[in-house]
């Protein structure tokens, strides 16, 4: 495929699909999920979303929405959760320390970005801000002040360094309860004309893979600490992988409605809209419809099958199609042959979650396999670095033997005619379910005449 550099650059935007790397333009193409405005409200919340469902994009959109309200923006801080192997009390302490450090950093930055806010505030607010920064900034606050002074050099920022460096009185004892410190932060924010504090918690996927139990324990400790959710000026917005939903919903504060719960789900219509909006923006078209790419019905069906309900899934799948389309001299919807060619060249990958016993192609879950067929597919997947013979499938996958009996003299040997047909039937059924065209398999490939199979296009 030959694509112009400009268009390639644009298409690369479909490559990343990690909201945190996508920059400002994401705001222009972001499609809001249901209940977005409710999520953007003034209550703490947890949003559960599957992989690729757009949790980070949502977090960014919520931040952007908050920052652009007519009645002023809140102080937005980020917390990247980690698995903390401590007692719950210590977990909360660690969380508070990190949150307060983030608040101190943001207050400093805010003071320099909007110098009049601090300069025009009441003396107690100035003193409290100085105290808070000096007490809770975990790095060298003097160094940070110097840095900000240099970055924001100008007459408007004159005097800020002195205000923030002042010897402030110790306003709260160091062992004050978290509720009191949170109230103090909210009051400072209010005194500066800031509409409260919003803490955004995101980026848990890594920990889910590495140490899920510890992450659950950490989050439960936080969600059970009601003091964190009782200050109206301090709001936590937490984006959580769906795998943690069942465990977290037993947290005490759930029954008390200290925080709202949302699920990040997308309908086919919304996913289509996401794709069309992004493609249109990328291709500089005021209006781009899915039919401009390929037959709407076919393409939607294909996207639903392999993209699941995930925006990332749909966009990843659409990328090679768009790239191919843009490489043609005349930009027309793809023909059936062209679509098929692109699919076979860039098929969505097959993946099996061996822990959860779930099969995916792309982001779509495969649920129609009979137990025996599923068992064989699992086995072939675990051996995907090599080929598997029918004997492998019968003796090892089905019978659970460590080795294949060599002859009738061996224990557990069963004559081939007694099982060969069932193996072939199971393989046939696998192809019927997973292959877009069983006659031209993409995933489960047989080496003709050799009686062996292997998997292609897997993760």
């Amino acid at each position, binding site marked *: 495929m030959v694509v112009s550099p400009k268009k390639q650059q644009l298409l690369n935007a479909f490559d990343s699909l990690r909201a945190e790397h996508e920059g400002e333009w994401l705001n222009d193409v972001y499609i809001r999920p249901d209940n977005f405005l409710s999520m953007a409200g003034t209550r703490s919340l947890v949003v559960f979303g599957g992989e690729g469902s757009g949790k980070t994009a949502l977090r960014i959109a919520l931040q952007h929405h908050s920052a652009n309200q007519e009645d002023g923006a809140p102080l937005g801080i980020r917390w990247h959760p980690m698995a903390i192997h401590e007692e719950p009390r210590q977990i909360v302490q660690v969380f508070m320390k990190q949150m307060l450090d983030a608040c101190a950093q943001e207050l400093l930055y805010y003071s320099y970005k909007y110098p009049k806010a601090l300069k025009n505030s009441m003396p*107690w607010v100035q003193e409290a801000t100085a105290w808070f920064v000096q007490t809770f900034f975990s790095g060298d606050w003097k160094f940070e002040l110097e840095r900000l002074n240099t970055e924001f050099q100008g007459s408007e920022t004159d005097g800020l360094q002195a205000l923030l460096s002042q010897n402030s009185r110790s306003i709260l004892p160091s062992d004050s309860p978290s509720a009191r410190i949170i109230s103090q932060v909210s009051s400072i924010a209010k005194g500066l004309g800031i509409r409260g504090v919003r803490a955004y918690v995101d980026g848990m996927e890594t920990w889910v893979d590495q140490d899920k139990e510890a992450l659950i324990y950490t989050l439960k*400790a936080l969600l059970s600490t009601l003091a964190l959710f009782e200050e109206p000026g301090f709001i936590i917005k937490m984006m959580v992988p769906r795998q943690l939903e069942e465990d977290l919903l037993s947290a005490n504060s759930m029954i008390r409605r200290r925080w*709202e*719960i949302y699920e990040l789900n997308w309908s086919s219509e919304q996913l289509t809209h996401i794709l069309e909006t992004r493609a249109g923006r990328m291709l500089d078209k005021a209006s781009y419809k899915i039919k401009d790419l390929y037959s709407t019905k076919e393409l939607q069906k294909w996207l639903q099958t392999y993209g699941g309900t995930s925006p990332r899934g749909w966009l990843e799948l659409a990328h090679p199609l768009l790239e191919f389309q843009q490489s043609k001299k005349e930009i027309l919807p793809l023909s059936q042959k062209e679509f098929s060619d692109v699919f076979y060249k860039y098929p969505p990958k097959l993946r099996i979650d061996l822990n959860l016993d779930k099969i995916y192609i792309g982001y779509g879950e495969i649920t129609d396999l009979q137990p025996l067929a599923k068992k064989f597919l699992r086995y072939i997947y675990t051996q995907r670095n090599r080929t598997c013979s029918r004997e492998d499938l019968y003796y090892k996958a089905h019978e659970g033997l460590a080795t294949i009996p060599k002859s009738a003299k061996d224990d557990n040997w069963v004559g081939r005619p007694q099982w060969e047909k069932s193996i072939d039937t199971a393989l046939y059924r696998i192809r019927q379910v997973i292959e877009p065209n069983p006659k031209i398999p993409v995933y489960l490939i047989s080496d003709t005449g050799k009686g062996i199979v292997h998997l292609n296009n897997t993760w």
Partner: protein
Amino acid sequence: MKDERVLDQDNTTNSWADFLGFQFDPFKHLNASDDPHLGEYIVDLEKFIGAWESHPALIFAPAGGGKTTMRIYTYRTCWVGRDGLHPFPIQYYLPLINDHINWVDSLEKDLERAAAYALLLSLSFRPGRLKNVAAHVQEKVASFLSQSFGKNALLFYLSVLEQAMDPTVLAEQIDRAYTLPDTPSPDSVKDFCTTLSSYITKEGTKQKVSIEEIVDQIKNLVIGELKFDCIYLLIDGIDGFADSVNEPQKASEQINRFLEKTKDWAKKGIYIKIFLPEETEPLIKSNWWKSHIHWSLDSLAKVIKQRISVASGGKFGSLNGVSGPGLRNDYIEYILAQNVIPLPREIIFATQQLFKAYERRSNGVGKIETEDLDIALEKYREDIKRRHISLPNPVYST
């Protein structure tokens, strides 16, 4: 794409309240401490008379069952509309972030600090109580506050009061549960600050004292000098901690240790009122007066009716007063009560949905109709389904 109206708890204009002629939205706040009208619509008060008498008390309630509401109400009841002899309430928060595993290990410091915050905040809302005592008593108050907070922190708090001229600002910084209605005049707040500041001359030396010495000091100051009737120590939030919330055994051990240590305080006029999760009741060893907050259909319905009555200035006594013909013969509060988890916050949440459905549908025309109730209950069911909670015996009938 569906796009719902913001569930904005801080929205200062509430269209449905305006449409229906209410003075304010009585269902705006799910958190008791945020509701300035809380004291006007507490239900079944007669059951809790014991909580306001001069003896220690244990009040048990389910999670979300109103412990904080009762605690805040008890605090405000001591102050609102009362002059002269009345109890002095101290709100005591159990320590979370410290190195102590046993709460009683930090009791001296925590009690002293709790009393200091109570004195500072309560008296700032009622500065006349300080103004009308003798100079030596004023000095003792200042000295106690200075000893507890440290001179510099106290001066900072006084500077906040002086600059803001409104004790609500200081209460929001420290503990909004101390907010009282009828804020004093700016001049009286200024006088209060000037009076206290004049006695703060040097940093006091903090000596290590025993809990009994702290208790005596507080008793002598509050009861002896300031002439309050007695002291109520209001303790709440035991199930607000990660390490005790699912372990009533652990929480009960802490509580029993605390009760043992404080068992003689009543003789000094300090009455502990402790609000406890009901799971701990079988494990608490005490013969103190006990009460249980339990929510029947009647009491849940009263939660709504009293709010309606207060917010409408007495114009309406129930939701029927603001309902259209389709609902006029139904006891809407009871329908709601039958279809929610039996807790006040749940029925308030469901009622919020009712009014939001009404607002979206009617745009100010007409009254609440059947479809609003249908939507409210559906929203409620969706919400508890999201929370993976089962309604014990779901019933829906109009």
